[in-house]
Each structure stands twice: as C-alpha cells, then as structure tokens.
C-alpha cells in the first residue's frame, strides 16, 4: 500500500516535524518512506509544507503532485492544496485557522478543532499530534507504537519527557477521527 500525504501550514505549526514523525513511524514498520519539505528563504507569513510517502514497496519518485491526504493548518495552504487531493482522497484541517472551508465534493473532508483540544490538554504545541492522531484514526496505516518510537527519534533528548503528553494528544486525535464533521 502506498500513502501520499501533504502537510501544510504556517512555519511555526510543527508541519515539518509532523511529517518527519510520520515518515519515521513508517520506517519503524519497515516501509519505504520519503519526506520532502518545501524549503527556501525564511519568509514568515508564507506557508511551509512537506510531503510524506509511505510505501510497502520501494518508492520510485519522491516528487509527487497529487495526494491521498492533505493535512491543512492554515488558509493559504487550503488555497494551494485543495485541488491537489486525488478524487476519493481526504482533507483534514484545523478548524480555527480556516475561514473558508474546502468545497470539493469528491473527497472526504474533516474539520478538527485541534487547537482547542490542545489548549484543553494544556500544551498548545501538541496541536500537530492531535491532527496526526486523527489522520491515523482514519487511515490505520501505522501503529501508534511506531509513532511513539518515531518520536524518540524526532524529538531531541531533552523533550523526551513530553512523549506521554504527545501520546495523549495522538489518542485524542484518533478519538476525534471517529466523530468528525464529515461534509
């Protein structure tokens, strides 16, 4: 099975590390993976994104232009990626940051109040893990243990004590996946 995901938002929203966690999780489960960031001069206010491919076989091209899933964390990214989701694919987005929701009808669309939920968990920074949880809830391509193992790689040592709270966030996200606002 092959999963092609794009994750997009503001620079500070943990977009790149969410992608890396996913990729590392795939590697833990012996999938071939690739992670490709948008890169460039630091221009805050612009968008950052990364694409992740998880594949049971060898990945040929790491460069992809359409996606099974788009995880969208701000409005400019919605404008950029809505049209690039494959028919039958899905968009997961953070409610607070999106003023104009997507309008496509040939894909699944999920609206997750991850920021609010993160505030509830008392750590704003786990917003991205909530969304990732939702993604995994909807697409059980990786085990949560693999993601937790991935976090030990992605998080610097001094942040390893945060893994439990990240786990909580992932689990909350998976819960939300079962009760999404599907349009």
């Amino acid at each position, binding site marked *: 099975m092959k999963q092609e995901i794009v994750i997009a938002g503001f620079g500070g929203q943990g977009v790149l590390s969410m992608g890396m966690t996913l990729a590392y999780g795939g590697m833990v489960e012996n999938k071939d993976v690739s992670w490709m960031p948008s890169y460039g*001069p*630091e*221009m*805050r*206010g*612009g968008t950052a994104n990364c694409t992740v491919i998880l594949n049971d076989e060898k990945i040929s091209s790491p460069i992809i232009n359409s996606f099974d899933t788009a995880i969208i964390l701000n409005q400019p990214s919605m404008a950029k990626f809505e049209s690039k989701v494959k028919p039958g694919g899905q968009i997961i987005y953070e409610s607070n940051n999106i003023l104009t929701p997507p309008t496509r009808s040939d894909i699944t669309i999920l609206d997750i109040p991850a920021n609010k939920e993160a505030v509830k968990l008392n750590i704003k920074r786990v917003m991205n893990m909530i969304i990732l949880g939702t993604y995994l809830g909807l697409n059980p391509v990786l085990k949560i243990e693999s993601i937790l193992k991935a976090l030990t790689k992605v998080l610097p040592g001094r942040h390893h004590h945060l893994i439990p709270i990240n786990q909580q966030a992932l689990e909350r996200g998976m819960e939300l996946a079962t009760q999404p606002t599907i349009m």
Partner: protein
Amino acid sequence: MSKSIQSVQCEHLDKMDIVWDRPDTLIDVPMHYCPGCGHSVVHRLIMEVVQELNIQDITIGVAPVGCSVFSYNYMDVDMQEAAHGRATAVATGIKRVLPDKIIYSYQGDGDLAAIGTAETIHTINRGENIVMIFVNNGIYGMTGGQMAPTTLKGSVTSTTPTGRDLSIHGHPLNIAEMIAILPGAYYVTRQAVNSAKTVRKTKKALLRGFKNQIDGKGGVSFIEVVSNCPSGWKMTPLQSNKWLDDNMLGTYPLGDIKVPEKIA
C-alpha cells in the same frame, strides 16, 4: 490603501494634520520580511529620504543577495539586483556611466563583509561618490541563520551551534572602523533601527549621505545600520530589539565614525 476600522474612533480627523504617513516612494505591497525585521524600516527610511530630496527619478539602487534581495519590490526607484557580495561593484559600474545619477547600494553583513569584502574595500578606496547602506544583523538571515562576519562572540547560529568561538571562527568584524581609515570614505556612521530614537537618527544619517552625493562630495557615504533578525536570532521582535541594545551595541557602538574634515 484601505485603512481598517480602529477600536478607538476619532471624530475630527479632518481637523487634524497628518504628521506621519507611509511615503509614496515605498511601494504599497506587503513586504516579505519576518515580523519585526529591521530591513523593512531601513527600506522605508531610504524611501523617505529619496522622497524628501525629490530624487526618485534620478536614483538607482542596487539590491544584494540576502533577505533584502527583493527590495526592488518595495523601493520605487530603478534598481539592479547584484550577485552575492558584488553590489558595490555593480554600483560602481552604474555610477561610472551615469555620474549624474544618485546611486546607492544596500547590503547585509554577509554580502558586504564576507563574500563582498574586496569590492567593499576597493569601492570605498576609489572614493566612488555613492551611498553604501550596510544592514548589520550579525547573521545570514536569508539562508537560515548561519554565522556572519559580524556575529558576536559566543553567539549561537546554525554554523556555530556552540557559539562563535574566536579561536576557530575569528572575531566580529568592525568593518566600518576599518574602512574609515581609507581616504575614499567621506562619511562613515553607525546607526540602528531598534527604537523610535535610533530610527530618527538613522534617517538623519541617510539624509546626510544622500546629500553628500548630491553635493558631489568626493567619496563614499557609508551608513551602517545595526539591525535585528528575530528569526535568525530565534527571538520575538521585542526581545531582539532589546538584545540588540544589550549585546550588539557593545561591539558595534552607535555614532559617527568619520565625518567630513575630521576622523572621530
């Protein structure tokens, strides 16, 4: 420009004077800079000076490679975008064929004081009658925060992860003091843009520099502006402006370094 509604309304705006407004010479588009970045302020000040001196139509600017690489999108004068480090060579080329035009170069510390060192020194040594604007933020902002020649001792950057070690990376480079000894340097000053007060002074320095050129004074007007880089320094804009005060200015003290007819 659409001015949005304010929380505090003012009933009699029409009876008041506009005492400050965005200069027309600053193109009315959002800038790409990070929030709080000093480049934007310097751009605006240059354009205020160009407007006040009424030289918009005879001014040609030279943009560097660095965060200000796009500055021609904001400064509404003819501009050339130079290769990394070569802004003053480009400015020399322009001034030599169009000596009646007003030429300025705009560079960051990596551009002017690292890769462009030779061009910097020799443009000044030739005494080209131009304004050189040098935005010293102690870091390579554009490429993601690597050490610049002007990075302070001990500062952590993405190429000095344990802080700048003088014995490995050498010393913060006081290039303004160094070039001030050249006869071709007509006016050398170091200013900042981290407060209203310093902004006012920088504007005055820029005005003086451009007037020097207009008056045909022989030599470069070199205006260093110590500036922040909130992103590269990994600080909020407010923190960065304070850090600038507390740390940068020790190594790069503000004030005139060389004024016509006397070396300070």
